[in-house]
Every structure is written in C-alpha cells, then in structure tokens.
C-alpha cells in the first residue's frame, strides 16, 4: 500500500525527510511505519496524525493515508 509520510520541525531536520511516499506493504501501525523509516522505536513524546487527525501509536494505517510525525507543539 502507498503511504505518504511527513515529518515536521525538529523531526524533519533529524530525519532529513520532509515528505516521502512509502510502499508500506507488511506494515500495520503508525509505530511500524516510524520504525521502518527511521530504524528506531517510536518515542512516546512524538505526536502522530493520520490524515490530519491525532492518533495513538497503535493506529492502523491503510492505503492512501497521510501519516505525519512531529515533536511537542510550541505555538501561541
């Protein structure tokens, strides 16, 4: 399946990836996706959104999803 992965802020700089299309066959959750892309376990401070909605680390990804990873937010 095709997943669009996005990283923001410090995670974008650390991974060197802003947005990337992934053939995520065999991956089930957003945690699996993170591990496949970064080769490290998902940190609990990292926030995850699928199709622009916050999800937990066990959220199941499906074909066409846009999955975004970002650090704690600092707006306002």
């Amino acid at each position, binding site marked *: 399946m095709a997943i669009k992965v996005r990283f923001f802020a410090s995670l974008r700089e650390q991974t060197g990836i802003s947005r990337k299309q992934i053939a995520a066959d065999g991956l089930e959750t957003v945690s699996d996706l993170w591990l496949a892309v970064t080769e490290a376990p998902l940190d609990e401070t990292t926030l995850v959104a699928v199709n622009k909605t916050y999800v937990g680390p066990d959220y199941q990804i499906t074909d066409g999803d846009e999955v975004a990873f970002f650090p704690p937010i600092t707006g*306002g």
Partner: protein
Amino acid sequence: MIPVRIELRKTGFDGFAEVQEYRKSIPAVSDYGACSNFVGTMREYNQGDQVVSMYLEHYSGMTEEQLEAIVGKAQNDYEVLAALLLHRIGEVQPGEDIVAIAVWSTHRKDAFAACRDIMEALKSTAPFWKKEQLQNEDRWVKNNSPGQ
C-alpha cells in the same frame, strides 16, 4: 451562524488593532456585554538568551482544522456570540504579536473562560513549532508548559 474568524497570517499585525477592526464587522449594538481578549507577543529573551528572530512552522491544513475544532469546542462549552483567532506563521521579530484571541459573550464569565480555554487548547493541540534564531545558533523550542 455566529461570526467566527480564524486566520493564519504571514505578516506582522497589532493584535488589538485586529480585534478592534474585527468588532466593526459584527453587529454594532448587539447582545454582547463582554469581550475577553488575549494577545501573545514575541519576547526578546527566552530561557536567558537573546532571540534575534523566530520561525513559526505549521502543518498546513491540520493547523487550521485544529483551530476550528478548538473554537468549536469553546462554542459548545460556553455562550460565544463572536470569536476571532489570529495566529502568526513564518518569520517573526521580537516585539511582534504571535497570537490574538477575542471572545464576545453576554457576560464576563463565559467570555473569560472561553478565551482562556481556547488559548490553553491552542498551546496543547494546534500544530505550530517555534525555531529561535539566537546570536550564534538556532534551536527548536522544546515544549509549551500547561497553564503558564
């Protein structure tokens, strides 16, 4: 439909001037007797260091949706007769306003509570990230403290 304006702004603004202007667009003599307004401004110093400028990153699409959900929740929890939420994005200089929130209600209790809740929710759920340019380095701001 109550008047609500939510906007991300790339250029500098005066939060109070924006609230003043926005009020002119809602009915002049209305049922509102109270407006609670919050304006957040970029400080020149943060964590003891002088900050030369700041970059405000956001997640286009999701940030707007989150802000709409935040204001929607406040409308659900309180009597909100009109609301404005304006947030800066991009390059910001010290002394420039970052966020302006204004909530109109019949009485002060709901106006204060709704404005406060919107600000707290924005700080905890709206995807914005601040990168500070110091004199010799750049750094990402680590996190927002709840309620501070």
